[in-house]
């Protein structure tokens, strides 16, 4: 029964990491330059989940398989006055992030997190009642 708690923790970690990535996406929704200051819009990132725990995939649970970049095209915004705009067309390349998609994903992650917490609470109550057999 105690390993169910480990399993729940693996779920919590996975959903929290997912939430971290979503917040990074939202925070960078207008970022057109990379950390070195070069012109390179931020690419949307997403996590891929895979079953089995990180340390030991044979154990039931879930883990982050990887954080991948969305290779879809960048959005374009017409803004000729912007120093980052293409001098011939006047378009600024924007990150390929859709706020509504990020929002829906964030909601899903937070609900899944809640479900995991509820599951762990239930596990704890079951363990407690089992311990009452001895007492």
């Amino acid at each position, binding site marked *: *029964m105690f*390993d*169910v708690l480990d*399993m*729940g923790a*693996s*779920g919590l970690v*996975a*959903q929290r990491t*997912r939430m971290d990535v979503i917040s990074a996406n939202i925070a960078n929704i207008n970022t057109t330059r990379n950390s070195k200051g070069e012109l390179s819009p931020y690419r949307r990132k997403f996590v*891929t*989940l*895979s*079953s089995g725990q990180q340390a030991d995939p044979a154990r*039931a*649970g*879930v883990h982050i398989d990887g954080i991948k970049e969305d290779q879809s095209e960048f959005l374009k915004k017409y803004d000729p006055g912007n120093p980052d705009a293409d001098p011939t067309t006047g378009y600024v390349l924007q990150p390929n992030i859709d706020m509504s998609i990020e929002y829906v994903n964030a909601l*899903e*992650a937070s*609900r*899944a997190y809640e*479900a*995991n917490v*509820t*599951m762990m609470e*239930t*596990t704890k*109550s*079951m363990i407690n*009642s*089992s311990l*009452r*057999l001895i007492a």
Partner: protein
Amino acid sequence: MFIENLLNQGSGPALSELLKFTSQRHKLLAENIVNVDTPGYKQKDLSLEKFQQLMQDRIEQRNNSAPGTVGFDDIQGKIENPTSGILFHDGNNRSMETLMSDQAKNALMHNMVIELLRKQFASMEMALKERVS
């Protein structure tokens, strides 16, 4: 011998078997909840109906034979992959509502079984002490 007979009578063995079943099922349901967003994950479950059918048959068999000859140790739920519900595009057939309600029901059953066992042990203790505690 006396103690063994005492422990193997009545509903005790059946209850402990049910306890094993509920813990096992809780583990599977927890795994399903944890993997609710994992692409390609297939839901796992133990069928309560099938387990109860097995138990019922065994209890009848036990009632018709000498005490202590028929046990429940070999009764086990079999892990199934239920195909009910919607299969999503990511290959996962999750249903959060079913999972949460199954989990709650399973936990309640677990706690109920524990309570019944406690009562049984308490009455056994009372009989051993020969006084009402």
